[in-house]
């Protein structure tokens, strides 16, 4: 039950992050929506899978995947933002 709710909330967060990528007007705003939505949604879905199916069915690899997403998500977000800034992309006013 708790696992189903966690998976549902994670899927909703992934969908909202994707819609924010479509809706915002500037690469930095899109990056913020996509980064936060992806990391939070992925962690929630993976934790929900572990809770829903039990520890034996999934093993430790899902925990490794969670740690990998948590550590490398901000890293790739920062790489994209830094590259965009170094190439002269500036945030739009208003």
């Amino acid at each position: 039950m708790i696992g189903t709710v966690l998976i549902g909330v994670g899927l909703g967060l992934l969908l909202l992050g994707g819609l924010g990528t479509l809706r915002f007007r500037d690469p930095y705003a899109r990056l913020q929506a996509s980064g936060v939505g992806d990391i939070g949604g992925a962690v929630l879905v993976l934790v929900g899978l572990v809770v829903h199916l039990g520890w034996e069915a999934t093993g430790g690899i899902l925990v490794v995947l969670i740690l990998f997403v948590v550590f490398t998500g901000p890293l790739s977000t920062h790489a994209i933002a830094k590259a965009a800034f170094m190439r002269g992309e500036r945030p739009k006013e208003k």
Partner: protein
Amino acid sequence: MRTYVIAALCLTAVPPLVRLWVGPTLWDRLIGAASLNVRVALALAAEAAFTGHGILLDVALAYAILGFLGTVLVARFGERGER
């Protein structure tokens, strides 16, 4: 449950695909590709966890690593200005 989760993940993969297709700059396309990588790795992990095929978990981990490497690589090359 498994069908619903996989179908919902496919639905959440539509906005990054659109951003990858229409994105005006290189950075928008890169954002779409990074989001798409996360969703594909999640779909692989969900399929592995629901069906019990443990080897798909390793595939999901390898896909996540390679997707992260590709994102950082394209960002670094785009930062220097090589096309």
